[in-house]
């Protein structure tokens, strides 16, 4: 396709003017690339901050006073899902919730 396009078009006069035209278009592309790179570094910082916040939130839940009493294994079948979720840490909830309960939550 590109070959056909190039064959059908006249040769570009890449003489003295060619380097200026190339320079202008390259400047434009470089500016876009620099902008995208800056945005990518911002995104990385936000990702790191979000990770910190997520780990802090998990630590906060694990370190809540009175948690020791709740660390006793809970029969998730015997309680409503909302109550069992509140009493479990995220990892416990992920590991301990029965498959059918997880399936209904996803629905």
């Amino acid at each position: 396709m590109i070959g056909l396009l190039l064959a059908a078009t006249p040769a570009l006069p890449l003489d003295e003017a060619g380097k200026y035209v190339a320079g202008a278009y390259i400047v434009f592309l470089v500016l876009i690339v620099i902008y995208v790179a800056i945005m990518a570094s911002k995104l990385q910082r936000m990702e790191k901050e979000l990770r910190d916040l997520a780990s802090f939130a998990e630590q906060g839940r694990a370190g809540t006073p009175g948690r020791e009493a709740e660390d006793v294994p809970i029969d998730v079948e015997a309680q409503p899902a909302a109550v069992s979720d509140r009493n479990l840490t995220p990892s416990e909830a992920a590991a301990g919730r029965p498959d059918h309960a997880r399936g209904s939550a996803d629905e």
Partner: protein
Amino acid sequence: MYGKGLRPLSIATVVAILTSFSLVFFYAPLDADQGFIQKIFYLHVPLAIVALIGFIVGGVFAIFHLRSGNRRWDAYSYVSIHMSVIFGVAVLITGAIWAKASWGHWWVWDEPTLVSFLIVFLMYATYYPFRYAIEDPERQARYASVFAVTAGAFVPLNFMAVRMAQSLVHPRTFGTANGGLPGEMMFTFLVCFVAVALLWVTLVKLELTAKSTSGQLKRLRRALDAPAQGGASRIAPEVS
């Protein structure tokens, strides 16, 4: 919320830019007067028009902010001006390259078109220190909006004054007395203009999405940090 529709918009922008560049180099005829160097025009002029319109759009958003007091409009105004300043850098560089190739000089000080654009650009370059010199967020947003409205009103006035002035060497893109561009050139120019405008909108949306996400993160940090008030923060210090 700001990120909604960003993906299709980005794809449309990439397609538009690739199409416009293809038209520039493989479809638009060579200019009889300037030759190949005229190809810079398809990039330089749309960038300049979109940058100037972006400054005006920033002023319009600032009016909305001043009328409603809603900080969202201030964010729109800030991002519009920010993106137009970036486009302004591209305009000045591509214009200088064209001037060097065409006139033999990177810059001509007695040309009103060049100097007026530089004045507009430098005026908006002062927007950042002006804005961030004010610490109180409410006052910062209000003063920045007043600046954006005033400067935004200056842009069309400046453009009209330059248009009416006697141009020394800078070509008039859309001739008024000697006819406009030929059909193929005009079509290519319009596609380039749409592509650059799409790029501006996409980057504005991307910037707004990043700012909104960053703001949400700060809110989350404050909410999670609240129980630890009175002592040292339990979370790692905010990444600047």
